[in-house]
């Protein structure tokens, strides 16, 4: 490890609290080339999540060139490689990046299950990796070189349950979740636990499989138990159909959900029945952080569609890396000590840092769909 850089990075980390980001500066890594590996499922079953991630890094590459994203004058690029939603390819890519001699840090993969396969390899070599969408419990526990900038469901759902319960004082709830995916299964478990802890009677639990399209049998069964609230542990494609079909069946219960429901076109896809749905999430597309408004604007201009949370968390990771590079980190050891010493960085997710378990330190936002878009839930 480069001993001399550690105090320097620590000092700069504190300075960053007051230093505005923006115009390109000349940092200690000015003129150097830094190549960051990114593993994303651009094709295959998880392509719908990996593609916005790829988009975000390509936007970041442009923003670094134009100086909008400050890498301290270094030539920083994100090399996005497609893992095709295949665990074997994820592992191969991790090894490729770790051994190519020019990659000091890897971002991704897209899914927690893939992270559980690839991160142990990185952890054994003390190679820095950061997940941007791997929300399952135990991801960062794989080793001291494993970070993530995505809020775990366990950090989001308790607040969602508390805030909605404080407002609606509901007595009963049903939970519906995908039981063949680590993310949605965790969602279902935490919702059930938190609802019970809040004294809510969980009258029914239904499961589905990822890529299901027909939820009417499960919703019909839920409706027969008349719950006040339906908690949805799902990702966007399934969540929109659940909400839409609940509307069709005339179900009036309040809908609540987690990160998986946080996509800008929730309303336009799910339709009028999405009205009033409450979503606990790591990011709000309308948040007034300076870099966020800019990010949403330029992403929309480039791709003809607003960014979702997958894109936002990836762009935030790019901002974190740019910040580390701007402060002189170009090798794997410098990245590690840089990440270790980060206090607070301004990102599209708001000001974030890492806790001692290397999980992201930030607070969830609770959003509600009013008219045709998200606003803060009060």
């Amino acid at each position, binding site marked *: 490890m480069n001993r001399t850089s550690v105090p320097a990075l620590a000092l700069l980390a504190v300075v960053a609290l007051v230093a505005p980001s923006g115009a390109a500066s000349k940092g200690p890594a000015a003129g150097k080339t830094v190549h960051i590996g990114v593993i994303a499922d651009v094709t295959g079953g998880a392509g719908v999540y990996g593609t916005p991630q790829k988009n975000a890094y390509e936007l970041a590459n442009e923003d670094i060139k134009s100086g909008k994203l400050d890498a301290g004058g270094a030539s920083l690029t994100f090399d996005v490689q497609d893992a095709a939603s295949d665990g074997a390819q994820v592992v191969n890519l991790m090894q490729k990046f770790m051994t190519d001699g020019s990659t000091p840090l890897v971002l991704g993969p897209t899914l927690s299950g893939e992270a559980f396969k690839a991160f142990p390899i990185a952890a054994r070599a003390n190679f820095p990796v950061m997940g941007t969408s791997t929300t399952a419990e135990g991801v960062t526990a794989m080793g001291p070189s494993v970070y993530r900038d995505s809020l775990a469901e366990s950090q989001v759902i308790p607040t969602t349950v508390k805030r909605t319960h404080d407002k609606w004082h509901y007595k009963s709830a049903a939970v519906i979740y995908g039981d063949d995916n680590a993310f949605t299964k965790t969602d279902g478990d935490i919702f059930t636990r938190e609802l019970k802890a809040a004294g809510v009677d969980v009258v029914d639990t239904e499961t589905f499989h990822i890529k299901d*399209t*027909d939820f009417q*049998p499960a919703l*019909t069964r839920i409706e027969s138990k008349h719950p006040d609230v339906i908690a949805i542990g799902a990702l966007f494609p399934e969540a929109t159909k659940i909400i839409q079909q609940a509307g*069709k069946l005339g179900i009036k219960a309040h809908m609540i959900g987690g990160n998986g429901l946080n996509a800008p076109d929730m309303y336009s896809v799910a339709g009028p029945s999405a009205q009033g749905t409450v979503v606990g999430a790591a990011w709000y597309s309308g948040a007034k952080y300076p870099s966020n408004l800019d990010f949403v604007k330029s992403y929309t201009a480039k791709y003809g569609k607003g960014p979702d949370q997958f894109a936002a968390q990836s762009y935030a990771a790019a901002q974190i890396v740019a910040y580390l590079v701007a402060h002189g980190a170009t090798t794997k050891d410098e990245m590690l000590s840089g990440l270790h010493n980060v206090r607070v960085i301004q990102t599209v997710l708001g000001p974030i840092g890492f806790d001692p378990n290397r999980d992201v330190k930030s607070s969830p936002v609770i959003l509600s769909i009013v008219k045709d878009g998200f606003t803060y839930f009060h």
Partner: protein
Amino acid sequence: MVAQQLLNGLFLGAVYALFAVGYTLVFGVLDILNLAHAAIFTASAFAAFSLAAAGVPLPLAFLGAAAVGGVLGVLLDRAAFAPLRRRNAGTLVPLISSIGVAIIIGAVLRGIYGVDERHFVTGALDTAQAIHLGPVTFTTVELTIFVAAVALMVGLSWVLRATTLGRRIRAVAQDRIAAALLGVDLERTIAATFFIASSLGGAAGVLTGLEYNSVTLDMGSPIELKGLAIIILGGMGSVTGAVIGGFIIGAVETLAIALGLSEWRDAITFGVMFVILVARPSGLFGKRALRQA
């Protein structure tokens, strides 16, 4: 709730059945499993989306997209099956070439449409048109879909029974060599079979897209394996068997959830299939039912 669940199962089963009759038709005629059927299902749904987005009225977009599916089916046969038929490559090898075509179709769709879910212009499919009839609720869209699926299956049955083309198809299914000796143009009949089978699969894709107002790259993947289960359950090449198999699988899935066993749904579905096959090793409708269709 029971009535609503029965209705849910019926709607689900209708689309399964429509998907499966196309699947089984190719199977009955050529003895091959066409694993690109689900990819054509998806491609047609995207074609309908594009047509509707270009302002074509929905019924016309539906027919146009089904025709796109039919043409893709003919192309599929030329690319993946015809060369192997000439080389007499057996029945397992074409299964793999159809997987190759399915990958290509998926990659092309991704290139054209990207990964985002597409939906038909709302207005046309307003969820507000729900009909409450006694204990059940359904939408005009669901009703239309059900009627369209049943009409197509009845139409197919008529074509197979009462037309010259149908007789040719059945002759080829029964004995390819004898049919050729009797003057049936094999390649043309096979092409017609692929057109019909794939346009039905495509129609099922459009109806699925309309029913959930959602067209996605992987919308074919849940129905692929179920479709396979349905046609085997129904009996090799039996159109009647595929229809009944479709409704059985739709009903079993719905029933599993209605009984509160949603997490065991697929195990129950495949368990039922397994037990029926063990009891009737050639499926419900025997080995060669298409001959008598």
